[in-house]
């Protein structure tokens, strides 16, 4: 016979106002299996918890129902309290009589009746609860960081500095990410490369960091603490160990026409190249689509020039396996491709700005390259069409952002600051030039941010127009920008020499594939989902996988770095124990009943179900059945619903518990 204690909370007046707590407690005492029923003003308070602990001990309770607030609020609290009284915490359930009862029903009699029902359901459930022990799994103390932008670099260095080995995977030939291509950064206007490149070099030289560039994550198996990651290293065609990075090869390469990815097409590069002079690793790579030798079978000048004998035309993609304990995803962002529909119906707009048709309509990242001393113009601001110095430049905010009609609904967060920075950089280089900015609102929240924007307007004389641009046309070699100044209340047409579009930030391509490999959710835009927006901002719902940087949402550099360090700290915290403890509310298979149809295996989002063989004493195969890997199962229970013979069940929400709950409402 069950010995269940029901503890109903007044929550001050919160519950007691609309629910007759005393009557509820009396009715709860009559429920089958209930040993005692008590109330307290604040059950979560110290005296409240003491009441629970003392009653558990005095009445030798084997199940506890707390009727108070949402289990999302205090289930952990009360389970801990039970544990202190030597009751297995998984024998505690809650009835949500506050959020889902007293706060939403004002008619006292009906709210009281419902509260009793909710307790009835919880009592019915707890009668079937089982004592569970947390699942322990060993930990491999090694971290995979995916993405070598500033966030990935920060996370990798923080972790490596603490003595934990890191594998850093970067898709491009060099780490550095978007930040390496910026000229100066807001709000201090310090040189982006000057602050980033030392960190990049540190990564390259760190004894605890293994760097894989030109590489992507191919496959992730296993579970928290015990991932096995396969990394595809694309053929680089260079023996990185032999190469000295002298540059003879790329200076001699005859294929010079490929648009430079690093300069966003504003400059050209050779087929054998390093993306930029400070690249890490400082080794070239051969573009297999541009190299004459690899495409047409002729040439080979680089081989002749290379004194280190480092060119390898027969290089092949290579798969590398690593045992990993935790994964940090820091894949960053890309800009919204202006005017190009994304094929998923999410983004359709802004063809009217002529991006891609008019060479002098460029994106803000392209503008960064135009002002960068290492850029294609050597830092002189010259427009792409004819190399002339633009005297009037229009910057347009929110191209694709904050636009439900044809763009993305969210704010890309950094563009207001980027525009302000650009007007200043422009003015500093073209003293007689005039910068115009079309904006919707200026969002400059942040330390020294608003002051920065004021400086752009007040000191550097940028003209800010609050309004949208309807279209850009090209006439007589100039760009006619037609918009509206809503503050002045009139249309505004500006003949500009250069237009810079602050396009929206979107997650990098391929992040959805990666998210599926590591079982992390993503939102409708492809940004990865954190576990809790406030309290677990770098954790994800996949145990052992963390996020940081712009793959999680639009962010500027300081925020990305902060989040990267936070992720690093979370990983190190996880590694601070010998073993990991996981919630035991997971699925398990009753193998004697399993027919081995593997519907569960097909549906499991965590690939937590494997076939297992049942053999007789002679070792003959009797049949194959499903088996749950407790390290991987997250307890969603999809397998339970799909199992036709109900041979798989879910601890914590078992068939017995659930049917008892429904049945109690008869």
């Amino acid at each position, binding site marked *: 016979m069950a010995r269940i204690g029901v503890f109903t909370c007044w929550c001050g007046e919160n519950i007691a106002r609309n629910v007759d707590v005393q009557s509820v407690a009396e009715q709860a005492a009559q429920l089958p299996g209930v040993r005692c029923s008590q109330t307290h003003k604040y059950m979560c308070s110290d005296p409240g918890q003491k009441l629970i602990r003392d009653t558990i001990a005095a009445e030798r309770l084997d199940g506890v129902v707390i009727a108070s607030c949402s289990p999302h609020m205090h289930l952990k609290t009360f389970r801990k309290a039970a544990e202190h009284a030597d009751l297995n915490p998984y024998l505690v359930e809650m009835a*949500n009589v*506050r959020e889902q009862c007293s706060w939403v029903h004002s008619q006292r009699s009906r709210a009281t009746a419902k509260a009793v029902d909710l307790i009835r359901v919880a009592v019915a459930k707890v009668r079937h609860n089982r004592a569970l022990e947390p699942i322990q799994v060993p930990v491999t103390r090694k971290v995979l960081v995916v993405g070598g932008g500033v966030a990935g670099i920060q996370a990798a260095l923080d972790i490596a500095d603490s003595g934990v080995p890191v594998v850093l995977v970067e898709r491009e030939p060099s780490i550095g990410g978007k930040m390496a291509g910026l000229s100066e950064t807001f709000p201090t206007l310090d040189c982006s490369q000057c602050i980033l490149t030392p960190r990049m070099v540190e990564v390259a030289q760190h004894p605890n960091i293994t760097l894989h560039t030109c590489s992507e994550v191919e496959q992730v198996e296993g579970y928290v603490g015990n991932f096995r990651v396969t990394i595809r290293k694309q053929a680089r065609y260079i023996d990185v160990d032999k190469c000295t990075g002298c540059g003879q090869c790329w200076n001699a390469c005859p294929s010079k026409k490929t648009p430079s990815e690093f300069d966003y097409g504003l400059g050209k590069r050779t087929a054998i190249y390093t993306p930029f002079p400070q690249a890490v690793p400082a080794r070239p790579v051969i573009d297999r689509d541009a190299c004459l030798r690899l495409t047409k079978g002729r040439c080979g000048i680089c081989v002749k020039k290379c004194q280190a004998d480092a060119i390898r035309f027969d290089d092949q993609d290579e798969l590398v396996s690593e045992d990993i304990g935790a994964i940090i995803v820091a894949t960053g962002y890309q800009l919204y491709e202006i005017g190009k529909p994304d094929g998923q119906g999410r983004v359709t707009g802004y063809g009217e700005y002529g991006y891609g048709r008019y060479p002098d309509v460029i994106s803000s990242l392209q503008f960064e390259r135009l002002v960068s001393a290492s850029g294609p113009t050597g830092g002189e601001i010259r427009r792409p069409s004819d190399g002339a110095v633009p005297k009037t430049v229009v910057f347009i905010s929110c191209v694709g952002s904050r636009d439900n009609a044809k763009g993305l609904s969210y704010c890309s967060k950094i563009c207001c600051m980027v525009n302000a920075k650009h007007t200043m950089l422009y003015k500093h280089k073209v003293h007689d030039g005039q910068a115009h900015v079309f904006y919707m609102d200026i969002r400059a929240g942040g330390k020294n941010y608003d002051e920065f924007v004021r400086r752009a307007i007040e000191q550097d004389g940028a003209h800010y127009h609050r309004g949208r641009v309807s279209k850009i046309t090209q006439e007589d070699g100039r760009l006619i920008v037609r918009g509206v100044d809503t503050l002045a209340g009139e249309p505004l047409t500006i003949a500009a020499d250069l237009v810079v579009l602050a396009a929206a930030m979107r997650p990098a391509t391929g992040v959805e594939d990666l998210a599926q490999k590591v079982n992390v*959710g993503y939102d409708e835009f492809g940004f990865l989902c954190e576990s809790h927006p406030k309290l677990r901002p770098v954790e994800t719902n996949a145990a052992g996988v963390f996020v940081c940087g712009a793959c999680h949402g639009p962010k500027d550099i300081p925020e990305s770095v902060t989040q990267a360090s936070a992720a690093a700290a979370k990983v190190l915290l996880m590694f601070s124990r010998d073993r990991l403890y996981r919630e035991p509310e997971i699925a398990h298979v009753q193998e004697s009943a399993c027919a081995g149809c593997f519907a569960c295996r097909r549906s499991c989002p965590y690939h937590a179900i494997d076939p297992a063989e049942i053999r007789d004493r002679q070792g003959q195969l009797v049949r194959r059945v499903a088996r749950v890997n407790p390290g991987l199962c997250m*307890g*969603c229970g*999809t397998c339970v*619903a799909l199992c036709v013979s109900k041979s798989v069940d879910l601890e914590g929400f078992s068939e017995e518990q659930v049917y008892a709950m429904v049945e109690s*409402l*008869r």
Partner: protein
Amino acid sequence: MNTAASDPANGEFEPKIVAYVCNWCTYLGADLAGTNRLEYPANVRIIRLPCTGRIDFNLIVKAFEIGADAVLVSGCHPGDCHYTSGNYHARRRWMLFRELLATLGIETERVHFTWISAAEGKKFQQLISEITSTTRDLGPYHAYREICETCEV
């Protein structure tokens, strides 16, 4: 013991509604309705499950067997599943199961499927109010209750 939420005061029919909701979206949406003090009728009894993926079709039948006049199944919006894909599996299940109910002549207007996120307290409130009132209009589900009456000896 009959837990049908009938109001003794006026003897009016009070629909009994069983709701199976996922822990991460709709349950939190219902919590949010509470936090925002959005009042709705007290006819619904929520049964919390981890995910819509866990909600077996048998539970809907069971709800009618215990005398429910309407059943609500609700979870995360497509793409928002806490477990990435439980709700997609659930969607398929309901697409087929609804057909079966219809073929059997079971009133599908008594079975409600919704996506309610943790942020949609307002939607939860409106939904429960609406379901309660439409079920009130439909009246008690006599047809299924008759099925559940044991035959005479």
